[in-house]
C-alpha cells in the first residue's frame, strides 16, 4: 500500500482528498500545516507527499525545500491553483516532481501518484538484468536504479532518475519535451513542458554539469534534449 502524506490547510479539502485516496487503497496521513507535515515526514515515512502550496504559516515552497533537504529521493506532488505560474516554476526548481491544479478529481490525483511511484520503482527497458553503463565520470546502474558521479552516488528524485534513464537509453537521440512528458511524467502531449526544463536543470546541477556547456544532457534548440555519450 502506498503511503501518502497529504499537507493541506483546508479541512474540507483535506478530508475529501483523504477519504478518496483511502478508498483507492492508499495509506494516508494528513497534516494541516507545513511544520506539522515536516514533523510527520520522519514518523510516517511516506512514499509520496501531496503538498498544497498555499499554506498559512510556513509557505508551501519552504516546506518543499525542507523536505528535499531531508530526502533527495522522496517524490513530491504540488497542489496549486491554476495561474500561480510563478509558484509552479519555483516549486519545480525547489525539487517538486509534479503538480496538479486544484480543483482536482481524486482519480486524476491518484493517477499522478501512481505515475510518480512507478518512476521510483521501475526502469525503462529490460529490468532485472544488472547492467552498469559508464560515460566518463558518470555511471548509471540501470537495474539497481543508481547513479554515480566520479564513483560517488548521486541522490536523484524519481523524475530526475527516470529522465536520465530515458535519455541515456538512446544516446544521441533527440527527445522532444512532449515525448519526455509522456515517457517520464505520463502526462498528455500538451502537458506543461516546464516540468521537463526544471527537471533537466535540477539534474544538471546534481551532476555538476557546467551550466553553459553541459556535457551529458544537451539542449537541442527548437527540438528538445539529447544525451551525449562521449
Amino acid at each position: 500500500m502506498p503511503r501518502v502524506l497529504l499537507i493541506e490547510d483546508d479541512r474540507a479539502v483535506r478530508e475529501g482528498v483523504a477519504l478518496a485516496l483511502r478508498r483507492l487503497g492508499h495509506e494516508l496521513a494528513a497534516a494541516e500545516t507545513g511544520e506539522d507535515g515536516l514533523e510527520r515526514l520522519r514518523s510516517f515515512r511516506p512514499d509520496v507527499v501531496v503538498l498544497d502550496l498555499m499554506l498559512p504559516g510556513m509557505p508551501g515552497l519552504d516546506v518543499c525545500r525542507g523536505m528535499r533537504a531531508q530526502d533527495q529521493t522522496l517524490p513530491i506532488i504540488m497542489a496549486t491553483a491554476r495561474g500561480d505560474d510563478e509558484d509552479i516554476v519555483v516549486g519545480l526548481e525547489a525539487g517538486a516532481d509534479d503538480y496538479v491544479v486544484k480543483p482536482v478529481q481524486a482519480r486524476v490525483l491518484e493517477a499522478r501518484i501512481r505515475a510518480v511511484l512507478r518512476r521510483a520503482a521501475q526502469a525503462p527497458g529490460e529490468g532485472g538484468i544488472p547492467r552498469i553503463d559508464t560515460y566518463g565520470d558518470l555511471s548509471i546502474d540501470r537495474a539497481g536504479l543508481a547513479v554515480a558521479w566520479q564513483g560517488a552516488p548521486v541522490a536523484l528524485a524519481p523524475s530526475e532518475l527516470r529522465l536520465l534513464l530515458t535519455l541515456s537509453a538512446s544516446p544521441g537521440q533527440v527527445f522532444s519535451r512532449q515525448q519526455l512528458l509522456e515517457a517520464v511524467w505520463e502526462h498528455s502531449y500538451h502537458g506543461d513542458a516546464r516540468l521537463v526544463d526544471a527537471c533537466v536543470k535540477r539534474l544538471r546541477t546534481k551532476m555538476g554539469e557546467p551550466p553553459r556547456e553541459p556535457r551529458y544532457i544537451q539542449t537541442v534548440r527548437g527540438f528538445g534534449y539529447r544525451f551525449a555519450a562521449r
Partner: protein
Amino acid sequence: MRGALKMRAGVPQLRGLRMRLIVAFALVAALAAASTGALTFREARTSVLQQSQDTVIKLLRTQVDRLAPDIGIPPGEAEVRRLAAGIAEAEPAGTWRVLVVYGGLSATSVPDDPFEEVTPELRRAVDTSPATVFQRVTSGDHTSLVVGMSVVYDLSATDSARIPSGIKVFLTVPQTREGAYVDALVAAVQRATVPALALAVLLALLAARGVLRPVRALRSATRSIAEGRLDTRLAVQGSDELADLSHTFNETAAALEESVAELRGMEARARRFAADVSHELRTPLAAMSAVTDVLDEDASHLDPDTATAVRLISGETVKLARLVDDLMEISRFDAGAAVLHLDEIDLAESLRRTLAARAWTDLVDVALPPPDALRGRVDPRRLDVVVANLVGNALRHGGRPVRVRLYERHEGYEGHEGYESHKEHRGDRGDEGGERLAVIEVLDSGPGIPASVLPHVFERFYKSDAARTRTEGSGLGLAITAENVRVHGGTVRAANRPEGGAVFTVELPLRSDESTGGSGS
C-alpha cells in the same frame, strides 16, 4: 480622434494662422504707407509748387514794375526787346525766358525763341484779365511754369484807375528743381515703405508667436490626451482669451481624467470581483471534486431517488469545476496575466494528439501536413485548448462530418472572408514572402451560424437563443479560444461556407526563432 488631428496637421502652412497674420499686417502697413505717402506727396507737391510760383510771380512783378516806367507808349521794337532782356535778368541763373508782346510787336529774351509754351487760352486770359495768369505746361518730360501778365500803369491808389498799357509779358520758368524735389519726396516715401513693411512683418511674426505658442501648446496637449496621457495639463499664462481657453482645457482634462479613472476603477473592481469569486469557489469545489468519484462509485448501492440525486451532484460538480476554471482563465486574460510558454512543436502532431486525447479521432476528418513539415513556436497547452474548443463546438452545434485542416500560408495572400474576433496590427517584417502563418480550419456540415449571431460568437456567455438549453460548454469556450489565439499574435474568425456549414479559421504566426519568443499579455 487621432485621424482628425492628423488631417488638421496636414493643412498647408500657407493657410495657417502665422501666414494670415503676416499677410494682414503687411497689407495694413502697405496701405498705411501708401495713403500716408500719397497724402504727404500731394500736400508737399502743392506747397512746393505754390511757393515757387509765388516767388516767380513776385519777382516778375517787381522787375516789370521797375522796368515799365522807362518804356514809352507806344514802345519801339528795341524797347520791347530791352524790356524782355531786362526781365530775364531778374533770375541770375538765366533760366527765365521772357516774351514781351505789344500789338504786332514781340520780342523774346532769347533770340528766335518760338515760345511754344504760351497757349492761345493763356493769351486770351491775359487779354481779358488784368490779374496775373499762370499755367503749368508739361511738354515731354519736363514741366514749365508759364506766367502771363499785362503791364498796367498805376496812376492812383485805386484799382479802377489802373490802365492797361497794352504790353503783355510772358515768362517761362522750367521747374526742374521743383520736379527733382517732388521726385525725391516720392523716393523718400518709397524708401520709408520698405522698412515699414519689414517692420510690419516682424511685428506680425511676434504677434503670431504670441498667439501661436499657446495654440501650439493646446494642440500638443490635445494630442497627448488623445494618446491616453490624461494627466496632461497646460501652464496658464496671462489672462487673455487663450489663457481662458487653456484654463478650460485643464478643467476638461481633469474632469476626463477623473471619470476615466472612475470607470477604470469600476471595471477593475468588477474584474477583480469575478476573479475573487472564482478563487473563493475553488476551495469548496476542490473538496467536492475530490469526492465525486466516491459518489459515483456508491450511487449504485443507493435507492433510485438518492442515486439520481447523488449522480446529479457529482455531474454538476464536475461542470461547475470546469466553469470556475474557465472563469479563472478569462480573469487572467483580463488582468493581462496570461503567460505564453512557447515551445517549438510539430503542429500536425499536436492537432492529432488533441483529437486522440478526447477520443474524437473517428469523428473528425483531418487533412494534415506530413510529420515535421509544419513546425512552429506555440504554447502547446493553449493550442490544445483552441483546437479542442473549436472541434468540440463543431461536434456539439454543427452537423457532422466535421473536418479539420492544417496548412501553411504566407501573409499577403487573401484568405476567407468572415468575422474576425481580433485583428492584430503587426509591423511589417523584413522576411521575404511576408510572414508565415499556420492556418487551422474547423469545418462542420450543419446549418451554419445565423448572420445575427456571427459577430457575437466569440463573446462571453453569448447565447444565440435566450431559450436555448444549457449545453456541455461553459459559454466561455470560444471567448477563451479567441484570447488564446490573440496572445499568440494570431487571428480567429467565424464564417459560413457557401456550400453550407460553418468554418472557424485560426491563423497563427509561425515563429521559429528564439528572439520572437516571450510572454503575451
